[in-house]
């Protein structure tokens, strides 16, 4: 039982780390602002999500009881991340940032 939980904690913590890294690789590598905006959504959802699941499992196992308060961080991030993405997209459209070649459709005038 113990080794199973240890295995699960290790797996989710590494999944979290990998997705945080992939999000930042996207942020560093993608060609224009609008595509880069997709990076942090990965880091928020599965990146932090994975580490939170790991923390939840680990402390529930250590304390021998369900520890749920880490869920609040994920919940808060799930509510706030779309808001900040939306604000940043609006800021970018306001500044009329360049789009990469081959982008279809037009951003709206602000």
């Amino acid at each position, binding site marked *: 039982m113990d080794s199973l939980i240890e295995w699960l904690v290790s797996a989710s913590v590494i999944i979290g780390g990998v*997705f945080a890294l*992939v999000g930042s*690789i*996207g942020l560093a*590598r*993608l*060609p*224009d602002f*609008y*595509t880069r*905006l*997709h*990076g942090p*959504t*990965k880091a928020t*959802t*599965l990146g932090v999500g994975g580490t939170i699941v790991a923390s939840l499992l680990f402390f529930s196992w250590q304390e021998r009881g369900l520890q*749920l*308060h880490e*869920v*609040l961080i994920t*919940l808060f991030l*799930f*509510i706030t*991340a*779309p*808001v900040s*993405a*939306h604000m940043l*997209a*609006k800021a970018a*459209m306001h500044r009329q940032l360049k*789009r*990469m070649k*081959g*982008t*279809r*459709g*037009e*951003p*709206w005038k602000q």
Partner: protein
Amino acid sequence: MKLMYRVLPYPSLSLILWFAWMLLSGFTAGHAVLGAILAVLLPLGTRPFWPNVPRIRNLPRLLGFVMVVLYDIVVANVSVAIKVLGPLRSIRPGFVELPLELEDDFAIALLASTISLTPGTVSADVSPDRRTLLVHGLDVDDAAALVAEIKQRYERPLKEIFEC
């Protein structure tokens, strides 16, 4: 019933507040009482900030919706990760206009948040008349298919949940 509505104008908000308080402070009897007091007082105090929040009409549908969104987040994360790590020439980003059927502001905000949470799509703007949502997709093969998928997977359940 009327008295209950006066004391608890937003029952689900009160429940969420109480539960958040319990998670933050630990499940003890004292905190249960303190949390209950806060869960009654806070919605009353912040009432002017909550204009016309629609009531949840279909709770099982809401739970199903949350499950679908969580599943989509995992699947979309993996597919976007592959696109980000692969050759960048093959991705075709695009702005897509999504005509809205939802009429309630709160439901539209939920739809926009859902679209932004699933990787690969970000909702960038909503038109002043609340009829169109501007969505940026990281890799849009077919704009019409993306619109149809969002409508079918997210908008229709929201419409059923709030019946608006």
